[in-house]
């Protein structure tokens, strides 16, 4: 691609919200999203009215869909920050076309994730007891509990990734403001841009802030999902108490995240006609990332099997139960969907085919959900005592709430697509001028 084409593309990106190319496709998607969102509201209403009993959870499986979906969403929510922060530090310029909406995806995924721990509570209206505030009871949170860690981790992650995304979009908002002709767009972008005027002294500080945040965000991502893994690994439950968990979870998270990014990329590329910007090279790179993280996740599976093999009878029993037990479908489903289609990505031709990338991404997304199901349910439904083993069967309301949060995610994402520059135009331009210039 040439610098000139990139410049045009950049201007065109900034003009996207004001001259939206695909109103119909957008409206249709939005329709779907909103109907799912309505389902979400209904499910939450029923839940609050009757209590967590509307789900399939029981003793021993006190954690069901809410925790499964929580981990799943949070995992997805790790790709955006990883892509933009890590690749930024590694100086991978091709990220510039992906990071903006990848980060947006992160925000919305983390939002969905963050809802679950609250909805999951027996007394959701008391969730703030997890925060250290000066209460009339004089009691504080229990800082040795993985849940308290998660509370801080998710909160921090949400704030940091929001800020990272926001300072990243400010220059584009400024540019869009200046290009906008309609008053309402000028005001919208103008307020968002905080009066950015591209002054060199600002740019200099901006770069410090942006790169430092990126540098901090990478370990943050790792820490957050490590702590999610401790939510399980800190308990004495066979199939959980494993030192493999933190890296295993982080890689799985990145994998699922990249899978979703791949899907969104293909979708946006098609819907908004971003072919000039999202070139086969980008698809190729995404494919490589997905493949790499996928293989690492596969290694995690293997490591877990080995760990179980010498970790004693209970661990082995759990492993056998996972592979052959009543929920074997979740284990095999995870293995097949995660790693079999993945192998297509060894070939460059496959990687650069949008449809292939989309399908592999979809498989991995479902597969990683199955993995979370497998982790939670197979371990709990038959843990130590034979007597306390009991089946777990999700109910309609389990599924509806899950679908509902997907609706919430889509709604937010579609609004973002409609209202804001989905691609970092100034970075594209920078790449064009400084990359293409020499």
């Amino acid at each position, binding site marked *: 691609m040439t610098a000139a084409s990139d410049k045009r593309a950049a201007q065109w990106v900034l003009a996207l919200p004001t001259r939206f190319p695909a109103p119909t496709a957008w409206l249709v998607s939005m329709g779907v999203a909103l109907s799912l969102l309505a389902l979400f509201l209904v499910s939450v209403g029923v839940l609050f009215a009757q209590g967590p009993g509307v789900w399939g959870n029981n003793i021993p499986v006190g954690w069901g869909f809410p925790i499964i979906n929580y981990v799943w969403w949070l995992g997805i929510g790790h790709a955006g920050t990883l892509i933009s922060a890590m690749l930024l530090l590694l100086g991978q310029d091709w990220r510039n076309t992906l990071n903006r909406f990848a980060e947006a995806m992160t925000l919305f995924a983390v939002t969905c994730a963050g809802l679950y721990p609250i909805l999951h509570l027996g007394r959701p209206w008391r969730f703030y007891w997890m925060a250290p505030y000066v209460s009339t009871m004089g009691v504080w949170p229990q800082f040795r509990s993985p849940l308290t860690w998660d509370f801080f981790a998710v909160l*921090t992650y949400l704030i940091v990734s929001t800020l990272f995304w926001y*300072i990243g979009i400010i220059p584009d908002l400024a540019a869009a403001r200046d290009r906008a002709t309609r008053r309402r767009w000028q005001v919208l972008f103008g307020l968002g841009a905080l009066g950015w*005027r591209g002054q060199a*002294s600002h740019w200099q500080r901006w770069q410090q802030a942006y790169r430092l945040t990126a540098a901090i965000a990478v370990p943050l991502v790792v820490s957050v999902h490590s702590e999610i893994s401790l939510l399980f690994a800190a308990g004495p439950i066979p199939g959980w108490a494993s030192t493999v968990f933190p890296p295993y979870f982080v890689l799985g998270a990145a994998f699922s995240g990249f899978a979703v990014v791949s899907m969104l990329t293909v979708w946006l590329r098609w819907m908004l006609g971003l072919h000039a910007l999202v070139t086969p090279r980008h698809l190729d790179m995404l494919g490589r990332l997905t493949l790499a993280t996928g293989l690492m996740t596969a290694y995690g599976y293997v490591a877990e099997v080995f760990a179980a093999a010498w970790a004693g009878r209970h661990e082995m029993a759990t492993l056998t139960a996972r592979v052959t037990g009543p929920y074997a479908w979740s284990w095999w489903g995870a293995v097949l969907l995660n790693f079999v289609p993945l192998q297509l990505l060894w070939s460059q031709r496959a990687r650069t085919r949008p449809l292939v990338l989309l399908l592999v991404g979809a498989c991995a997304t479902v597969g990683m959900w199955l993995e979370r199901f497998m982790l939670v349910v197979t371990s709990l439904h038959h843990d130590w005592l034979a007597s306390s083993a009991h089946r777990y069967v999700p109910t309609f309301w389990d599924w509806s709430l899950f679908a509902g949060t997907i609706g919430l995610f889509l709604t937010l994402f579609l609004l973002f697509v409609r209202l804001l520059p989905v691609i970092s135009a100034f970075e594209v331009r920078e790449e064009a001028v400084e990359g293409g210039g020499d």
Partner: protein
Amino acid sequence: MTDPARHEPFALLAEFDDPERLVAAAHALKEQGWARLDAFTPFPVKGLDEALGFADDRVAKATFVGGVVGAVTAFAMQAGLSLDYPLWTGGRPLIAVPSFLMITFELTVLGAVLAGIGTLLVTSRLPRFNHPAFDAERLDLSRDDRYFLAILAGPTFDRDEAGKALAALNPRSITQVPKEPGA
């Protein structure tokens, strides 16, 4: 178009259409000993900071300090509150350092990022929604594909000197930015 006679200028701008010439121009002016230089560019131009002699690391410092503060606060909070109402759990010690490190790390990150970005906004005097620069002819192109070198007006600002200096760089155009929006 505002009348320079009636209006104290904010800055004098020279427009270039590629970053290399901007950097070169910046170097030139710097060597001529111009102090209050700045530029307007669509993206951070490589080498411009050196050329203009920017070396502001307050953001970095603030990030570090914010991180330290966050860390100390986090650990102190956990230890303090665990001792304020000592409740025994799981046969573990009240001050369980390994357990406390998680939240300590999270709040380190939070402190660092908040401090860094906060400093960015404060030191850059942002948000600033109304600014003379926005009135300048063509300056909005600096958010597109033009590159402007600016000599900011100061107490010892001489328009003609500055005008000559900029003209010597033969930019595409020279613009004056008035301090007050024109009538």
